[in-house]
């Protein structure tokens, strides 16, 4: 019961901050609200006992990626009040489309069983167990991600050079 309340609180925080991400005028505000939402998501992960993911989420997403965003915004001084007024109709249409999308998703995923879950044996989120799975069955993809990072590093450097 307590967890249910926790769930709803976290969800409210999450949704609110997401809405503020897209509706705030200044980009810096958007970044900050996104960080808040990441924290909320990490809270959800902890609720699910996915401890590893919760921590990784904070370190990688909130700690690295968002910092990168902030760097870019600050360095390029992009904090100006952005776009001129667009015709409001586009916004309305977009929002309506978005709601349509949401309804479609929910409708698509409707028939899933509604039984509450028994969380007594809930240990797959622990680092030990997850590590075992990661390094046994998913070893090759794990190694390949290092190649992926190599490619992205090289790509970033190539693109970002001042020529």
């Amino acid at each position: 019961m307590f967890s249910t309340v926790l769930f709803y609180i976290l969800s409210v925080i999450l949704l609110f901050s997401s809405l503020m991400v897209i509706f705030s005028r200044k980009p810096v505000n958007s970044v900050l609200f996104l960080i808040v939402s990441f924290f909320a998501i990490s809270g959800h992960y902890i609720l699910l006992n996915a401890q590893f993911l919760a921590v990784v989420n904070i370190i990688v997403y909130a700690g690295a990626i968002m910092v990168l965003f902030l760097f870019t915004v600050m360095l390029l001084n992009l904090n100006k009040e952005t776009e001129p007024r667009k015709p409001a109709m586009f916004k309305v249409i977009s929002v309506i489309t978005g709601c349509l999308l949401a309804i479609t998703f929910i409708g698509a995923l409707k028939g899933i069983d509604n039984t509450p879950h028994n969380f007594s044996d809930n240990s797959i989120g622990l680092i030990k167990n997850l590590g075992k799975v990661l390094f046994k069955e998913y070893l090759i993809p794990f190694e390949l991600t290092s190649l992926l990072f190599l490619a992205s590093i090289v790509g970033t450097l190539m693109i970002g050079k001042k020529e």
Partner: protein
Amino acid sequence: MDTIITSLQGISIQSYVWLCSILFTIGVVGVLIRRNAIVVFMSIEMMLNSVNLLLAAFSVYRNDPSGQVFVFFIMVVAAAEVAVGLALLVMIYRNTQTIDINFLNKLKW
């Protein structure tokens, strides 16, 4: 911790589905509405995160660790993509002095 965990009953998977769908939709709306490239990127990150959450929820509810491993890999890819994307953004800013995505409309008829 254990008390919190063991009393996690009453939240069906449907709730998570609803939550993540709405989050995803917010991300999509963000991409459609905003013209600032930075905000667009952030909306994309939000979409990815919603999917992450849903995957993790499913993996817990089905007792299958593959879901969480997949989330891990999605995070990896998201990190790499952000790096490259921001580098591109910086490049564009250097060339056009703006990050309004409407300025990049040369690939047309």
